[in-house]
Every structure is written in C-alpha cells, then in structure tokens.
C-alpha cells in the first residue's frame, strides 16, 4: 500500500515536472530594454512623467499580449541628470543583455555615443539634439530636433511679422548642451536669409525673478522670446513678464513681448506652473495634445486610468513622450517578429531604419508619422504650433515642416 502511494506520488511529481518544463518551453521570450533618466534632480519635472509613460506602455504591452507570448522587460533607473550615473546604469543594462536602450539627457547621449556605436544598440533618447546624430548610426531622435523646433518658431516669427525691418528676437536657453543645441542652427538660418534679428541669447540661471533681464530685452527692442529650456524657468520668466505687463495679449502686439517655446519649454505642465501668465504662450512640438479630442487622446487617458495615474499625469506632454518612445521600440520588436526574425539589436536596428514610406509608423501620439532611414534618423518630421488660451493649449494651423531646416542642412 505504502509503495503504491510512493509510486503514485512519483508519477504525479514527474508529470508536474514535465508540465513545468513544457510550459517554460512554450512560454515566450522576454526582450529586455533599459531606460536611464532624471526621475529626481534637475529636469525631473519632465523625466518623472516620461518614465511613467514608458512604464505604463510596457505594462500595457505585456498585459494585452501585444507581442503574443513574448514579453518586454524595461529596467528604469534614475540617474538624477548625472552622466556618470547614466554610464553606470547603461553598463548595468548591458550586463542584463538589453536589445534596445532609451536614454534621456543630451549630455549623457553625447557622452555615451561611442558606447552605443560599439555595442551596436538602437537608442532613442529624450534629447532631440541634432548633434546626437553626428558620427552615429544607432541614435534615433523620436521627433524633430531642437534645431528644427527653434528654427520653426523663428520662421513663424519671420513669416508673420507685420512691422518694418526685421523682427527682433531673443533666445532664452538652458545653460547646458541641451539648451545650446538649437541656437547655432537659428544663426545659420538667419545667415541663410531668415528675416529676423537675433538680439540676445540668454542662458538662464536659477533666478526667482527675471525683471532686470526682461527690462534689458525690452530696452533693446525685443518683441519675441524663443525659449529652449524646461518648464520652471519659463514659468518664472512669464510670471516676471506678467508683473511688468509685458506679455502680448495677441500675437506680435506692439510694445509687448510674445513668448514662445520649443518642446520641453511648454505643455500643460507650464500652464500649471505659470497660471494666467502662460496665456498667449506659443509652443511647438511634434506631439499631440491631450486637450484635443481624438483616438490618441482617448488611448492615453485610458492607459493612465488603467494604471491608476492622476489627471495631471494623464494630460502631461512628457507622459505622451514616454509612451511614444516605448511605442516605437515595441513596434520595432513586433515588426522583427512578424518577419520571423529573432529580436536582437541588429534586427531591431534594421526595423528602425526601414520604418519609412509604406512602413512608416503612426503611433497616434504624434502629429505625423515616425519615419527613419539610414540617412534620416529624426522621427516625426512635422511640427505643430499650439497657443495657450483660457488655460489650455489649442492647435494653431496645420502641422508644418520648417523650410529653413532643409536650407541649412
């Protein structure tokens, strides 16, 4: 009797063991990705929602089995905006055999560029610096570069200037590689015939008031300020301008200043920080806004709701940004699988560079398709201008591609 029970138990155990192995055999693969970004410290106002966008979308992919039985695992690490920590995180990710890497800052993207080339790993940074693409094969910008954004705004100023002579413009930039990424190209565009006068380039500090700087710009006749930085310094700038009654109530209002900004210098987060001072602020990006109705908006809100995120995050443009880069990475994986290829760094790179023409990717979160090739690694080429009215950003006109970007390339 006892022997029979032991035999039965052995048979059951063997069965369970075989079942366990076979389940493991049919279970899909796990593709690993890494993301190192500033969840805390400088620029974390953008990094934190960005990380949540990536996190939620990857959860969604796994929960909804968008890659069938295969799963995606994305390691997300905070680097506090410090390149040394980013490098350490990247080395850690490589030990985990990641096949795709999402980076964040301009400084670390430039610093790690040789590593990306050696590792032959496709990289999507949150930095849209055109310089990331120089001497690189594996870095892909998600959307139009900072240069394109700043030149696009400058072009808008030139095209819509009603006064005599040239429009006087100042640039308000972040004191780093990120901030300086665009002004050289704005200067090139001016040299190429763009009809504006660049009066001053201000690298902001950590000022709590910009009165003196604004009065100086005013005395120089500046009518337009193009910001290329993160939201908090722009909010301070706008509040100072509001207290001095300098903000133009309509575009290009005589005697006042019209404030404008590139991607990270705007968005709903800016309105939350600057309040009524953000009224009539012009902002350019390649992302769709959650204030506009559409399938992309509905999908993003549903995603945020599904993973318990609050309304502020659900409407944040950097949350959109994070979702978008994760979408592109997952799409590359899906396409590689669909072709019957193994998901590796090499196959993902091939999928990325063939994402054009009929193979262009439409992620719903952007105003145009994501297109890459071996010679063009800027994702969404079109930009959308938005203007803040009654506490919400509204679309202004149709998506456009700046003319002068082509001229200076």
């Amino acid at each position, binding site marked *: 009797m006892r022997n029979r029970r032991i035999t039965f138990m052995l048979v059951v155990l063997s069965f369970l063991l075989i079942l366990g192995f076979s389940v493991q055999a049919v279970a899909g693969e796990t593709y690993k990705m890494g993301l190192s970004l500033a*969840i*805390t*410290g400088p620029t*974390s106002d953008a990094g*934190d929602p960005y990380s949540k966008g990536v996190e939620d979308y990857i959860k969604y992919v796994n929960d909804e089995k968008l890659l069938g039985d295969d799963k995606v695992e994305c390691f997300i*690490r*905070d680097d*506090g905006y*410090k*390149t*040394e*920590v980013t*490098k*350490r*995180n990247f*080395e*850690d990710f*490589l*030990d985990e055999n990641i096949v795709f890497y999402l980076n964040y800052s301009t*400084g670390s993207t*430039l*610093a790690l*560029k*040789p*590593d990306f080339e*050696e*590792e032959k790993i496709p990289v999507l940074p949150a930095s849209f610096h055109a*310089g990331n693409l120089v001497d690189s094969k594996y870095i892909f910008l998600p959307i139009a570069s900072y240069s394109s954004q700043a030149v696009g705004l400058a072009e808008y100023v030139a095209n819509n200037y009603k006064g005599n002579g040239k429009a006087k413009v100042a640039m308000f930039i972040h*004191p*780093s*590689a990120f901030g*300086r990424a665009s002004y050289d190209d704005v200067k090139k565009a001016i040299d190429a015939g763009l009809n504006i006068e660049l009066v001053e380039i201000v690298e902001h500090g950590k000022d709590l008031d910009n009165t003196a700087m604004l009065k100086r710009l005013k005395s120089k006749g500046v009518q337009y300020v193009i910001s290329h930085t993160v939201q908090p310094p722009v909010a301070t700038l706008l509040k100072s301008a509001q207290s001095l009654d300098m903000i133009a109530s309509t575009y290009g209002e005589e005697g006042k200043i019209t404030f404008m900004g590139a991607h990270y210098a705007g968005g709903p987060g800016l309105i939350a920080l600057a309040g009524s001072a953000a009224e009539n602020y012009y902002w350019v990006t390649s992302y769709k806004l959650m204030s506009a109705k559409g399938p992309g908006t509905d999908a993003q809100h549903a995603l945020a709701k599904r993973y318990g995120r609050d309304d502020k995050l659900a409407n944040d443009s950097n949350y959109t940004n994070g979702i978008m880069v994760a979408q592109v990475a997952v799409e590359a994986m899906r396409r590689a699988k669909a072709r019957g290829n193994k998901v590796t760094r090499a196959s993902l790179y091939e999928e990325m560079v063939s994402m054009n023409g009929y193979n262009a990717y439409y992620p719903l979160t952007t105003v145009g398709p994501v297109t890459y090739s071996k010679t063009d690694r800027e994702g969404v080429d079109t930009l959308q201008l938005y203007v803040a009215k009654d506490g919400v950003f509204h679309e202004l006109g149709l998506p456009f591609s700046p003319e002068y970007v082509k001229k200076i390339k």
Partner: protein
Amino acid sequence: MSENRWLATGNFFTSYRAEQRIFLTNFDRLLFTCFLVLLFVWPLVFEVSNKYMLVIDSILIAIVAVYGLNLLTGFAGLISIGHAAFVGVGAYTLATFARILGGDHVLLTHFWPLMIMLAGGVGAVIGAIVGLPSLRLKHLYLVIATLSFQMIFQWIINFSKFFNQGQTIAVGRVFWFTGKVGRSEHYFFWYYVILVIVIILGFGVRNLLRTKHGRCLVAVRDNDRAADAMGMHPGFTKVYAFALAGFFAGVAGALHAYLWRGVGFESFLLHHSITYLAMAIVGGLGTLVGSFLGPAAILMLELQVENLAEFVGHYFTALGDVATAFRPLSFGLVIVLFLMFEPRGIANWWRIVRSYFKLWPFRY
C-alpha cells in the same frame, strides 16, 4: 631596533634611518605584500560586473586625487575647494590633444603613459600658479582664492568653443602589447593600470613624507613662522604643496578621461571639489591611510544612497522629490558627524584596530 625583525616591539630605534623605515617589521611588509597580491588577484577569481568595476576604478582614481588634496590640506594645512578643477586641468590636457589631433591619435592611444605624466605636469604648473596667492593669503582668504580658480575653470570650459562648451570630448581606446584594449576588457585593464599608479604614487607620498621636503609641509602647517625661523621657506613650501596637489590631480584627471573615454564638464564642478574634501576629511586628514579609506567610504555611501533613493522613489512615489535630497543630506551629515565625533577620520579606526595587535612593550 629589535634584533628580531619579525616581532619587533617597543621603541628600539638606534638611528633616524631606522625610525623612518616604511615597514617597521618584516611582518608588516609580509602583510602589505599579501594585501597587494590580493588586490591583483581578486578580479581574476571573482566575476564582477562592469558597473561595479567602473565604481572600483572610480574609487582608485579618487584615491590618486585625494593623495594630492591630503598633501595640500592634511599635511601642508592649506584648504582647497578647487581640487576638482585641478583634476579637470589634467583631463582637459588630454581633451586639448583630442581636439587638435583627434581622439584616436596615436599620441593618445599608444603613448598614454606619457600623456598621463604630461597631464600631471600641466596640473603641477597650474597648481603652482594657483598657489601663488598663498604667498600672501591664509585660511579663509586662501579658500576663497581656490574657489575663484574653480569658478574660473568652470567658466572657461563652459563657454569655450574649443572645449566644446563642456560637452564630452571623446578620447579613443588605448593600445597595450596585446593590441587595442576592447570594450570587454576596458574596466579590468584600467583597474590594473590605476592600481599600479596608486601603489607607485602611494610609495611616492610615503617617501616624500620621510624627506625634508615632506617634513617642511608639516612644519609650515603647524607654525609657518617657526618653520621660517628654522630655515625653511614657507612661501615656497606652500606653492610647492599646491604644485604637488596639482600633479596628483592632473594624473587623476587623465585617468578619468581614459576610463570614461571622454572628458565632460560635469565631472569637475564645485560639488566634486567638496566631495574630494569630504573624502579627505572622512578618511583622515594628514594620514596616508585616510587617502584610501575616504574615497572608498564616500563613493560607496553615494552608491548606497542612490539605491535607497531609487527604492524610496519606486515604492513611495509621492516621496520622489524627498529622495533627491538624500544624497546631499547624507553627504553633509557624514561630514558634520565626522568633524564632531571623529575628526581624525576613519584612519583613526584603523589605528585603533591595529593597536589591538600590538605587543608589550608598546610602540608610540
């Protein structure tokens, strides 16, 4: 000195030469040799990830930099809060070559030992120049002078097109007898290179302190007027202390550039200068052992605080911003606690541990 060189006890020195020996007993020498063998062998036995090898290499580089700061602040009594800028001078010496000749030029990739020495030399020259105010300034005023140097350095790098406005200037991979040092062996290769440099420079510092030039530093620190009366030149000694600090920092900077394969502005800020000072204080000012223990303690603490901040940020998302403050908080707290309760630093703990193994009659 006792006849038995293995178990010598008490003060039995019969000459100054005997008192100045690096190893007082053969047992000390044996222990030190075993420790060195251990340092060389362990990477071959244990598998360590690149991430941690990078941390270990960074600790070794910080040790080289802190040697210099310890000579300047610990032994010569001249407080500097511009040490990261000196390290930056060494790194940007390489960056200058990289900008003019290209990061993969043979001078940088094949003659790297020469470049490291050159970076040290440039660091020494700049150190001597920055040390000139010490001929007239002391204490807080001198601190401000070193702070000025830090600010001037940051400003020059940040706004100079030649230095790429602080953005990374790439430095190529170096060559060894076996060929190009590839990615897979990069951190191990530099571990051994930096370890050898740490040992050579460590012996250099130890020997310097046995010479009249080393004793001059201590004499000027304790009482520069008395040192002057004894025939030493306090002004020259101070400038030369700055030059020495600049040399060590320059070497550290060059090693940093090679290890990180590039030079970026972010690694040489005021906050890094304060970190070096904290390493010297926590390790133990005026002790050679402190130069090893301080960097290890501070960089490991930094890593652990980072992990803690990430843990807090991950599980308590509302406290994400609080987590940002962990690093400066822990950093400041450690310095204050050491200054209050253990001003002689971790080196004093090492002294206490060693005292447990002393045999009667004790040496003092």
